[in-house]
């Protein structure tokens, strides 16, 4: 918890700015915000405009006709599963991506639950290729193991596997929230196939009221599926390599919408960094559009990356030092982002992954 004492949650009423404290790093609240109460810090990287605050529901008025908003429709898996080795040692398996043909990829943590910080969890039992283990009571064989990262083959038919995953699994979650997250609390309003290890949470405040208002305003809204992975494994060396390669799939309709938006001079606005990762990975050689179909995103986004397809994005709030902050630096200068964080702190906004948000968009329309 990094709650900023003295910054009361000023919702749902108007936010009262607090005096800035110049010599301290801004501290953001870290509690969950109801979906319909999310604030948006609007950052316009063109020129040197000051960041400002808007309600998330004002999004349709911050973009313009001809733009395209792209969301990640991956549903969040019940990816935390109990397991036991052949000699009776328990572990938690956290799925890192989609489940296909009886294969489970993920990381192991020692006994315990999310209330212990991931990096403080006891080490998982050491397992090796060929070991027989059980996941949620289902027999499985270890196909590959590298430290706590594993690939498993489960021995049962698909219907029984999915029935068991949903009966025994729970969403992956972290120590900053002690109560168990319900499966429905980590789904977006358009979630489809369960591909995401963690919620593509930038789309959480995107209600259907907002989606339909965007469309009425002449803004297209389209979806892709990106297998958002784990944000932490509890192992420093593994964490440094995150995000791992992640699968994505871009439907024809969405690829066409990207091409059409670019052709008419509209901006492509990604809802979430997973969408940025998929669209940039799928950028065609001309840089004007994206390839249809599935692929694996391996690129790492940071200040050095020049986006080829995506003009702007909606994201959670991130502070300097976080890997996501580097990613946002691909879209706006670092000092402008730091001012945005300062504004967010001043107004008591939350950097929780289910918290407040930012919109980084050139020429974000003034309301």
């Amino acid at each position, binding site marked *: 918890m990094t709650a900023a004492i003295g910054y009361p949650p000023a919702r749902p009423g108007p936010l009262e700015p607090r005096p800035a404290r110049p010599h301290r790093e801004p501290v953001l609240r870290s509690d969950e915000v109801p979906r319909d109460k999310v604030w948006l810090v609007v950052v316009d990287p063109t020129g040197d405009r000051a960041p400002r605050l808007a309600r998330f529901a004002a999004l349709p008025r911050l973009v313009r006709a001809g733009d395209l908003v792209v969301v990640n429709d991956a549903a969040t898996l019940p990816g935390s599963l109990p397991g036991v080795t052949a000699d009776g040692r328990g572990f938690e398996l956290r799925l890192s991506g989609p489940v296909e043909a009886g294969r489970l990829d993920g990381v192991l943590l020692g006994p315990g639950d999310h209330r212990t910080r991931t990096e403080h969890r006891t080490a998982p039992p050491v397992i090796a290729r060929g070991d027989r283990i059980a996941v949620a009571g289902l027999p499985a064989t270890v196909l590959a193991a590298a430290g706590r990262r594993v690939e498993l083959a489960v021995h049962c038919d698909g219907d029984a596997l*999915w029935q068991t995953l949903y009966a025994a699994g729970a969403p992956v979650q972290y120590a900053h929230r002690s109560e168990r997250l319900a499966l429905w609390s980590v789904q977006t309003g*358009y979630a489809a196939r369960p591909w995401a290890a963690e919620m593509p949470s930038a789309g959480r405040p995107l209600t259907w009221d907002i989606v339909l208002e965007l469309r009425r305003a002449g803004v297209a809204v389209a979806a892709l599926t990106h297998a958002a992975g784990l944000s932490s494994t509890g192992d420093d060396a593994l964490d440094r390599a995150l995000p791992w390669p992640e699968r994505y799939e871009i439907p024809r309709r969405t690829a066409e919408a990207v091409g059409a938006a670019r052709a008419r001079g509209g901006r492509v606005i990604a809802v979430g960094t997973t969408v940025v990762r998929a669209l940039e990975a799928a950028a065609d050689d001309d840089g004007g559009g994206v390839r249809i179909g599935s692929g694996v995103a391996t690129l790492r986004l940071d200040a050095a990356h020049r986006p080829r397809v995506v003009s702007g994005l909606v994201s959670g709030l991130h502070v300097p030092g976080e890997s996501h902050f580097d990613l946002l630096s691909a879209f706006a200068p670092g000092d402008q982002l730091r001012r945005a964080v300062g504004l967010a702190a001043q107004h008591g906004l939350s950097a929780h992954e289910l918290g407040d948000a930012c919109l980084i968009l050139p020429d974000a329309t003034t309301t």
Partner: protein
Amino acid sequence: MNIQGQGALVTGASRGLGRALAEQLAARGARVGLVARDAGALGDVVAAIRGRGGDAHAIAGDISDKAAIHRIAGQAQGLIGEIAIAIHNASTLGPTPLRLLLDTECEDLAAVLETNLVGPFRLTKILAGAMAIRGAGVIVHVSSDAAIEAYPRWGAYGASKAGQDQLSRILAAELDGTGVRVLAVDPGEMDTVMHAAAIPDADRAALQPPAQVAARIVQMIESGARAPNGARLVAARWDLTP
């Protein structure tokens, strides 16, 4: 909508109309998720469909259980991918023999609404959002003439079906232009276990076989343009000529 290759979810699919719908969608090349409480009966139906070369998957779950809904939708989309066709067929009469409203326990009315109205609503909330963002989908609510006629002793069931009809219409109005179609279909009286529970002394020879009604509903899904979005259709009056 061309059914070939589409993901379809049918609730109450272990018997009666739901089973017939699942069988016929699978026969037309859909990847079908079958939902029912009774895992044993469901497994038999799935095995039978697969035996005929169909793509069918069993999802054991109770539509009236709030905690089960996201599991049902998640399992279905894990197994068959995106759902383009959702048929809300599962329903309950409440305790039988059917009672007058003034003799109906409040808890029994609430339980009927959970299964017939709130459960389908919860499932639709998940599936319709995914359909609307992709721009295509059909949602079918199996209705009843008890939604319209005031049959004594059918109060709980009739109220739940009337509510479901109205959910259909309003959902269709709200999603107008997104590519999602919503229909309510009155199947008419069928020779099913449910009908026997409601009217034990009915002349079974006068009842329609569920397979015949399922064929009409499948055709309604295929020939979208012939029914306006949000329409309430009566299966027996549906012209089967394509």
